[in-house]
């Protein structure tokens, strides 16, 4: 799953399939239809993310957020030069999650040339719950944004 790719662009969906809106990133990746792009699904454990994007050119990561915004809101964060807001992805599967992985990679000099995070505000994260309609709307928006951005990269 974390095998290196020769593709210029890597798109990583992060989430837990069994916890409702937490799976938003996985839904995006499963619906993308792009050429010469490697798609990956990861649970969100930080060291694995760092390993996945090290040495890559352009990387997009899609994750669910819990920032207090309206459910389904979409945020585009360019992590290449700017730190991610802390606590934004508080629902990462593990305590060493996406935000920690980005900043640790920055300190170690292992960030990809370009790293863009799409965050979709979630609403329901209970075990066994479905994707909420609001987040399904956010997923559709991100699919459109990334399809456009990755093709024009």
């Amino acid at each position, binding site marked *: *799953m*974390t095998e290196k790719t020769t593709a210029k662009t890597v798109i990583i969906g992060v989430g837990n399939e*069994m916890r409702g809106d937490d799976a938003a990133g996985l839904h995006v990746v499963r619906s993308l239809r792009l050429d010469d792009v490697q798609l990956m699904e990861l*649970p969100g*454990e*930080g*060291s*694995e993310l*760092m*390993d996945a994007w090290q040495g890559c050119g352009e990387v997009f990561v899609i994750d669910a957020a819990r920032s207090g915004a309206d459910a389904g809101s979409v945020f585009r964060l360019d992590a290449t030069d700017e730190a991610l807001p802390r606590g934004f992805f*508080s629902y990462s*599967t*593990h*305590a*060493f999650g996406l935000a*920690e992985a980005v*900043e*640790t990679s920055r*300190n*170690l*000099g292992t960030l990809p040339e370009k790293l863009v995070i799409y965050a979709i505000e979630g609403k329901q994260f*209970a*075990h066994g719950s479905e994707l909420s309609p609001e987040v399904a709307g956010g997923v559709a928006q991100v699919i459109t944004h990334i399809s456009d951005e990755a093709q024009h990269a």
Partner: protein
Amino acid sequence: MAKTTSRIIKVDELARVEGEGALKLRISQGEIKDLQFRIHEPPRFFEALLRGRIYADAPDITSRICGICPVAYIMGSSQAMEDALGVRVTGPLRDLRRLVYCAEWIESHVLHVFLLHAPDFLGYQDAILISKDHPELVATALRLKKLGNRILEVIGGRAIHPVNLKVGGVHKIPSKAEVQSLAEELKWAIETSEGLVKAVSAFDFPDYSYDYNCVAMRHSDEYAICEGRLVSSKGLDIDIASFEEHFSEEHVSHSNALHGVADTGKPYLVGPIARYNLNFEQLSPLAQATAKDCGLPRMIDNPFMSIAVRMVEVLYTCQEALRLVENYEEPDAACVEITPRAGEGFGCTEAPRGICYHHYKLDDQGRITFAKIMPPTSQNQKQIERDLWGVVERYMDLSDDDLKWRCEQAIRNYDPCISCATHFLKLTVDRD
């Protein structure tokens, strides 16, 4: 700080632990009035989910209890099913199981030691800040952890929730060449781990000790990981089938996780310190010598030293993994033959955080009629509360912020996998 002041300290979201939990602490006139370690992730009813399923489903379903230690659940449930079905897994298949379990220890321990717990000892809020000041240390830890993942991929098919392991053996036999390709990195890992034991052992450990009732598995021939009897520092020595006669779970109103209690009615300790105290002589000569050289006592009663013990165990499991890799011969069959039948079976293995107990009953079709699982964090929960009580008494004079940090550090001694226990930690300290 004057002891007469009322204090309310809250940790609403305990970071660097796995799952959701909280600590509430009320101190009045310099005395602890109330201390509750709460786990409020909802219970997930895995045991009920298993009832009516065929025996072979148990490893894949229970492995979903935890993304960090899925192997513990796969192995414990497989072993219990094999016990119920009257089969044994031996030879190279058993060796593969021990190898994949070593990988889980390496991965889980290294994650906890360097990315979650070390910041407490080095005075950093988190691992990001360590990586700024000590990038080589973090890069080394990440390489070590990646080796654990790599072994899991080779044997288990993938690093998270491995898919190649099953009741009776494996789905596909890993080739000798694939397994032996792990050797070079393991040699690097042994040398590196030795240095890391020294680095971690030099941390400043807060002063605190407790006379623990340590409980761990013991095996006559090896440092117990996958199988053995259950022993305790209070003289217990039992077959795993007798576990429930000596240990039980109780509900407490302030937590969604069950608390484990020994038959003495008191808490007990499972995990790295328990294993080290009970089975030190079965560690490799290098692991024993390194621990001694680093000044670690033969019997550890300071829970803050658990971080060093984890690193000793990483050194040991890297050596053990290399031994298993170098001696690996492909088995003749991927799996032992199994005929479904009615039965009752028990399984118990040493998960990175301590013993993980499984008990199942099957009907004559091999369908599960009863399931009981006791993960290590449930078993340790009562002991965590007891430690917190002692740590707060010992460090009462610290400022609220420092006391809060010390409490979090004490909880992280257990690398609590709250997701496993039911199921982020919040800390509340009230002083009035």
